[in-house]
């Protein structure tokens, strides 16, 4: 078992790398005086593909950048990692790697109409890097005919066929019909090209399913994802999807075996490591509210949500900051993207920029038009992922308003487009527009791209992850107060007194429709005395209830978002642009 690690107490330095689809980052954590700190980092385009056959090229280069600034050597004459650390200038005590650069697992999903099993299977698949290539159900949710089913599987050539359906003790014939059709499709393929079959339906049918599939395909059986109409159970299926992804995708990537050899723990999918960190942060906060993590990567968008200690991970491999924008433009109307822009941008200009970004995914905008477009794509990437994620959350008491977000204590923001936004207020605005948090939340920015790395470090040396976090591994972006309620634009909905630690005070009246930033720099705290208007909820217990709260400052300051929930953009183009321009000005964009 690789997870076992010996000599953890003696670990002084940890080298961590994350191979993303676009960029590879390396980070060195070292013991400095009283704790672990991020000492240096390197970043370079990921090397994998036709001309660069292994991720290790980029990894070595990113590590070399650390060597350049620290004068510390990490590789010996044979190119092997020096571990444990020989002297403070040679080697590292531990190494860990996370990878999101690989292709997603390609899936075919089938289930039954009416029992919600397809939606549950879809959410189970979204727990890892997976892409649904075809559904074995028609637009009404009915299973396809045998011939259409076989044709769909043959055309899509998936790596996994997941069949769900049939509540416990429920329908069996349609489920077995799907299994038969899928087995037939497998039997028509070359043996080495056959997909694995994952059965996640009515458990009473397992024996019959095994008999039908026989040796035509590799069969894996997990607990029913929809045992009853009102109960969803995803854990087993998610674990199996993750295991299939690791086995069929991640471990097949050239270079991953080398990274694995250097590390005492197995190479982890980045999303899982990110989720682990978000779970850890939940333990630091109030148990009644949730903690969210949003990572907009080059190819994938990840939302990690923790409520009642349970992590719900949603990975959307359709849209990231670099890839998928043109698909979005083609599949939906242009306005889905351009509605977030403060200036006009034609369809042709939008399409050119989105395709050229895909051909140069590491590039960054140098002019504002292009910056706004990339931030618009980030908003839509988060919104699309949230659409898949939300129905699977079990927020408990944090969910007061069914159509709005549950109360979240902390929101971690990761991924280059947001973490490296030219102005911190821009990153905050993207999150406010896309997630539309309610009540009081702390926004935390993963400026150094450390979040998933720390999740990975926690497997080797939990103390190092904790101390690196405490030492500023994550940066406060600001505290958001977002009152919920209905009023006319311009009506006062919240009175607020801000008492700063230096004794000064600030009193403000917040009007409905306003987005305001009050000064509260990073490292400072203040006490907010909140008095909402009757019918408005600021997340301190009930509508109309006020309270005092101690909050932290951040790069963007104290943000009051009284624009209403759900956020309403004007239907008139010019008016909407004025809205967006105003909001950008307010956040210092």
């Amino acid at each position: 078992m690789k997870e076992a690690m010996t000599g953890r107490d003696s670990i002084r330095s940890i080298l961590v790398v994350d191979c993303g689809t676009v960029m590879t980052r390396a980070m060195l954590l070292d013991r400095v005086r009283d704790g672990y700190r991020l000492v240096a980092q390197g970043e370079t385009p990921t090397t994998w593909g036709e001309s660069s056959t292994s991720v290790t090229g980029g990894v070595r280069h990113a590590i070399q950048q650390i060597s350049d600034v620290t004068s510390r050597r990490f590789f010996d004459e044979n190119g092997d990692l020096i571990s444990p650390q020989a002297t403070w200038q040679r080697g590292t005590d531990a190494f860990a790697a996370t990878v999101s650069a690989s292709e997603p697992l390609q899936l075919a999903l089938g289930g039954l109409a009416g029992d919600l099993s397809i939606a549950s299977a879809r959410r189970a698949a979204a727990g890892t890097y997976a892409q649904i290539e075809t559904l074995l159900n028609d637009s009404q949710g009915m299973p396809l005919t045998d011939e259409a089913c076989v044709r769909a599987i043959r055309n899509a050539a998936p790596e996994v066929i997941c069949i769900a359906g049939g509540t416990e003790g429920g329908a069996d014939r349609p489920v077995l019909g799907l299994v038969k059709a899928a087995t037939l499709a497998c039997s028509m393929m070359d043996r080495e090209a056959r997909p694995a079959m994952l059965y996640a339906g009515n458990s009473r049918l397992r024996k019959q399913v095994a008999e039908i599939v026989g040796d035509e395909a590799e069969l894996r059986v997990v607990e029913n994802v929809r045992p009853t109409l009102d109960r969803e159970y995803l854990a087993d299926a998610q674990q199996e999807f993750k295991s299939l992804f690791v086995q069929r995708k991640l471990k097949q990537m050239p270079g991953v075996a080398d990274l694995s050899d250097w590390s005492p723990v197995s190479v982890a999918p980045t999303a899982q490591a990110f989720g682990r960190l978000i779970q850890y942060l939940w333990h630091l906060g109030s148990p009644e509210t949730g903690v969210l993590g949003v990572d907009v990567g080059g190819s994938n968008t990840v939302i990690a949500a923790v409520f009642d200690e349970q992590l719900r991970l949603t990975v959307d491999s359709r849209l990231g900051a670099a890839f998928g924008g043109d698909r979005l433009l083609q599949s939906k109307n242009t306005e889905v993207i351009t509605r977030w822009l403060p200036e006009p941008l034609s369809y042709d200009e939008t399409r050119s920029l989105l395709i050229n970004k895909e051909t140069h995914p590491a590039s960054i905008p140098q002019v504002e038009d292009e910056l706004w477009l990339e931030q618009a794509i980030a908003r839509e990437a988060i919104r699309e992922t949230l659409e898949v994620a939300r129905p699977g959350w079990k927020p408990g008491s944090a969910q007061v308003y069914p159509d709005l977000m549950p109360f979240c204590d902390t929101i971690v923001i990761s991924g280059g487009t947001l973490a490296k936004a030219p102005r911190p207020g821009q990153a905050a605005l993207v999150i406010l527009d896309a997630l539309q948090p309610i009540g009081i939340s702390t926004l935390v920015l993963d400026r150094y791209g450390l979040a998933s790395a720390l999740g990975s470090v926690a497997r080797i040396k939990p103390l190092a992850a904790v101390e690196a976090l405490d030492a500023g591994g994550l940066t406060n972006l600001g505290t958001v107060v977002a009152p919920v309620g209905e009023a006319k634009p311009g009506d006062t909905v919240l009175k607020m007194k801000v008492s700063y630690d230096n004794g000064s005070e600030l009193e403000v009246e917040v009007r409905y429709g306003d987005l305001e930033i009050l000064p509260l720099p990073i490292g400072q705290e203040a006490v907010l005395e909140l008095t909402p208007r009757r019918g408005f909820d600021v997340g301190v217990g009930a509508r109309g209830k006020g309270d005092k709260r101690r909050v932290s400052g951040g790069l963007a300051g104290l943000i009051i978002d009284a624009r209403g929930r759900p956020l309403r953009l004007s239907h008139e183009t010019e008016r909407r642009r004025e809205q967006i321009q105003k909001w950008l000005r307010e956040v210092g964009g």
Partner: protein
Amino acid sequence: MDYATETEIKTLTKIRRERILPRQGEILVSPHDRVEATQVVARTDVPSDFRILPVARQLGVSGTEIEEYLQVDLGDTVHQGTLIAKRGRIFGRSVRSPIDGIVVARGGGRVLIEAQPSPFELHAYIPGTVLDVTDNKKVIIETSGGLVQGTWGVGGESVGVLKIITSRPHSPLRPNSVDPSCHGAILVGGVTADREVLIRAEDTEVRGIVTGGLAPALIPDVKRLPFPVIVTDGIGHTSMAGPIFDLLRANEGREASVSGFVQARWRRKRPEVIIPKPDKTPQVDEARHDKDLTIGSRVRIVRAPHAGSVGEVVNIPQYARRIETGARVRCAEVDIGQREPVDVPFVNLDVLR
């Protein structure tokens, strides 16, 4: 020592290409064989159409009863109209095959008929020497020649003679430049923004188009063309980079192999133009993989405000600089022929090698 992305623009280099069958088949060449670009080097059969006939349902019998009514066995060759199953004599029901094919499965009241597989032939794509063959599936061919990597493309592979139809790298391709002399040629020009150019190219039966920029409105049109289109610099009204234009112009009249396959995501497969010169040997192995960005590197800028400009790195400042959006990032100073070098983030540079 810093990293940027790179685009290969080589006058003479060693080029290896893997040719892979979609499934195992027959390899028709051996190591050390000389091959031509259009030569078939491997072949296989790929599955074709199929039909699943719900014979039990159509005859109104159960799945277990159907055996006695079936008129065909596994492995039987059938033709369109062949009787598959029959129940009753004069006014009974019958099921006939809708296609020519073979009975490959029967059971559960259904019969599966697969049409004859279609033959698939794999061409060499580039002329050269066979280096290796493996698993009845893969052939590796090596040649020497010029190489230009594109950024976007469509339409598979093709072979033809290079013909330059614009005088300068930023000039638009004009419909009247596409005349009967273009038949069988691979057209090269600055910017493609006129739909009429594509219509004429198709009428003239050209073998491909290599263009610096392509108007986004024409993307649906180029996807329908029967030949590949290779975009060397970007979607939009983008010029062809000077070094690419010069290289292609210097090889006008030579035969080239072009591929429009692109997969930016995951595998990053890029479109390309290969100008084979199998009788020439590169002086040095230019195929060395080296992405370091250094002073003197020839680079192309990929983002506005200087997108498409080609220049030389003249300085790599040690500290991050503020760019137009307000972001502070590591930059290189690039001489693009303006009075002063311009600051460009490393990540917005594409090293031309």
